[in-house]
């Protein structure tokens, strides 16, 4: 294989993976989200999600509204950039959710249909690798990257800047600060050969929520919510991969004016199919659904998700331009 071709492939594979996809703050992130790539790479994710259930998908606390049935259409767009910090791989990202949601909510004992639309709370994310390969500062580093067993430190912070109407229970924005601390783990199983890569990935995390002092005139508080995502991911070919996804939520008990609801203890299950369309563009399709969600207070949510991530790196673009000259 010609060297330039191989180098392009090395970079593009890294770019087009989920590695540069900013967080789906409101949902489980797909597998391969925390794979590392070349420093100073860029990505713009476009995410479309169709969700239904008894919780507002724009609210990561997944507070259950008993008996409710929401349908939501989410879109998210963002920007992410990788860089090197203290010789470790790091990533900073911002993502803005947008969309619409409608459904029946309980107001004064009556079921009322509400709807909301607009921009959600923008979220900032910072991630740095703690254990595992050093940052990929150049192409030789990319060539030699294998995650082995790597552990990151993840911090998310959502800004209460989304659309919010305090007269309604159902909103796109949450009118409070919230964020997440997590430790993404990527565990390589077997050879790191495109077409044969297998990983087991975990994301243990805790969501922390501020107080919404104006939740339909009341005070909404939410306890920390513990989350564990797990993925078994496997290449089908050099460009196609799939994963089995599991998510477990625990805690996150909410109280309104001191009246507490139930805490979450739910399990979700799903799958994802990913495909690298070209050097820059990666596609995923996934479905997930909660399990054991028959009781009224059980979290019930299912969603289809389609993502497109456009990644680029100046080096790759330059190589491509020169290559196309020949």
């Amino acid at each position, binding site marked *: 294989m010609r060297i330039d071709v*191989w*180098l392009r492939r090395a970079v593009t594979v890294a770019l087009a993976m989920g590695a540069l996809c900013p967080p789906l703050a409101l949902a489980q992130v797909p597998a391969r989200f925390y794979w590392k790539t070349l420093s100073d790479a860029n990505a713009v994710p476009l995410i479309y999600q169709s969700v239904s259930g008894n919780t507002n998908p724009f609210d990561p606390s997944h507070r259950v509204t008993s008996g409710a049935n929401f349908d939501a259409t989410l879109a998210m767009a963002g920007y992410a950039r990788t860089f090197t910090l203290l010789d470790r791989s790091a990533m900073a990202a911002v993502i803005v959710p947008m969309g619409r949601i409608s459904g029946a909510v309980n107001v004064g004992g009556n079921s009322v249909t509400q709807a909301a639309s607009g921009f959600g709370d923008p979220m900032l994310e910072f991630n740095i690798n703690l254990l595992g390969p050093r940052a990929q500062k150049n*192409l*030789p580093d990319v*060539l030699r990257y294998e995650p082995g067993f790597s552990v990151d430190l993840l911090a998310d912070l959502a800004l209460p800047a989304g659309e919010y109407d305090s007269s309604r229970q159902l909103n796109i924005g949450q009118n409070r600060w919230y964020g997440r601390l997590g430790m993404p783990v990527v565990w390589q199983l077997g050879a790191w*050969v*495109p077409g044969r890569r297998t990983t087991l990935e975990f994301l243990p995390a805790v969501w922390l929520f501020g107080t919404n002092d104006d939740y339909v005139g009341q005070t909404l508080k939410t306890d920390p919510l513990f989350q564990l995502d797990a993925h078994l991911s496997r290449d089908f070919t050099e460009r196609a991969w799939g994963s089995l996804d599991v998510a477990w939520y625990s805690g996150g008990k909410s109280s309104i004016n001191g009246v507490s609801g139930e805490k979450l203890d739910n399990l979700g299950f799903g799958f994802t199919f990913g495909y690298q369309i070209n050097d820059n563009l990666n596609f995923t399709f996934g479905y997930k659904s909660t399990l054991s969600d028959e009781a009224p207070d059980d979290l019930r949510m299912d969603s289809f998700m389609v993502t497109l991530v456009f990644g680029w790196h100046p080096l790759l673009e330059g190589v491509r331009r020169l290559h196309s000259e020949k």
Partner: protein
Amino acid sequence: MKMEQVSANCHAVLNEKNLVCDANSGLTNLGGGVVIDKLGGLLGALGVLGMIIALAVPAIGMAADAPRRPNIVIILGDDLGFADTGAFGGEIRTPNIDALANNGVRFTNFYTHASCSPTRSMLLSGVDTHVNGLGNMDEWTAPNQRGVPGYEGYLNNQVVTLPQLLKAAGYHTYMAGKWHLGKAPDQIPAARGFERDFTLLDGGGSYWDMKNVTAASPRLVFTEDGRYLTRLPKDYYATKTYTDKVISFIDANHGDGKPFFAYVSHQAPHDPYHLPREWRNRHVGAYDQGWDAVRQARLKRQVELGIMPKGTELAERMWFIPDPVVLAPASRAILGKKMELYAGMVENMDHHIGRLIDHLKRIGEYDNTIFVVFGDNGAEGTDLFNMIAGTPGTRDFLFAAINWSQTSPNAWGDPGSFVGYGPMWAQVSMTPFSQYKGWLAEGGIRNALVVSGPAVKRAKGSLNHGLMHVGDLMPTLLEVAGASYPKAHQGRELPPLIGKSWMSMLSGKVDSIRTEKDYLAWEVFGNRAVRQGDWKLRWQFKPYGKGEWELFNVAKDPAERQDVAAQNPGKVKTMTALWDDYVKTNNVILPSRGPFETLEDQLPTRVPVDTGFPPLIYKRQYVPPKELMADPKP
């Protein structure tokens, strides 16, 4: 002493005596070896009778108490380079080969042939390639060579083999590894003197399974003890399995009193560089510095070790190979990774050589074993895989797409990957010489040789610069075994040996077995060369050669940088006469077709390689004196 041992000793002694008589009397046309085997078998079966004979015949009894003849182990690396081992200046970790070198002698002027089968044929027959059947590689037999005796493409029956003679002399004869001297039942190791074997008959292929490289011949062929294998053993990995097998062969007969001859003909480090994963990452980044720097470092160590004289220059980098300095780090990394893998291949082979050595120590045979270690030809600089499968639309391309397409560098070493390291690293392996396998420059035919063991009386760890040849092994090892080369075998008069025994040199009586008048000569693929004393006459296809005779003083100029033919017409004339003699004596037929016939049209025009030229790509950023720098005026 056990009865079986007495019988076996008797057998060995009788065999020795019989062989001597046989050779002296010339009564070999009855097949001395067969007679001896039958006698030995009879005595072995009648152990009691053997004991009686041993006790009753004082002369034989005394001989039985004489020192045992040494075991002989030949370890052949396939495409192993002159400078790859630590003992010859390499940075690759080869502690076991180095230990043999420290316990024996290193030879710096040892010649093989430029490709695999010719070398192996001379090693095992002691006869020139154009006589023994490998006048050309089987894969490249030219139209005008077809059907001509000496060009059969396999080790022909005009010659007797070293294992046949050693077996007749009372040795056990074992082989594990690559053969590449014929596949038909009468051509395989079991038919050519090896009593036990585990053999790859082909020239190369997968180290993991039976996958070959060409669509026409998709399956490698193996034999074990003369039977063609339908499948490979569990957990097969060539280098490991060959070692396991030869150890098991040795153990199976250990204690019967007979010495053994083991031919451990490794496939490693021939491409594809198939390697267990744990051996792949021992040199990560070590070769990013590029081939020139590694060559320089190796030459420096060679000079320090005395392998090369002070003032030795490196051979010119091949004109079509870029200066690594001008390559991007990523390019150096990806090309360096190939060398990392090669280094792992060599280290892995050394590891398994160490396993064999350790085993011989454990069973008490090490001190009585002669080791002969060398590579079969120059390192491989030709992209064989591309030659075979590099053309889209061909049958071999499709075959490769299915079977050999693991091209990701992270898959290199796995089944289905095919990595060779290219001419730049082949030149490193052959430091300081010019060119590589397939060519008759020193880089194609000069190899590192280590000999250790009881026959070596020279200072441990010493060097010898005498002119040696792979064809010398037959007379040398026959002398070690107390045997001699018969005039005829199975009713056929045998061709003369081309080599000379090393025993006088190994014992320290002489420094070189060759006089200034002795000469060596080579021909393969139409390239030709003659060496006599310090001089070498060489004819090679353009652009590797000039398409005419070139003359080099390889003692002063081992890198063959200066063609001095024009300044020494008399020497050229003398040596061309030697060439003519060689052709006449050995029935050399220059091939009408060959792998290099169109090479000049495929490669860039040959130009000198001048360091730092052109300055255009070497001159670094000019930085003005700080005190003269200023911002622009408004």
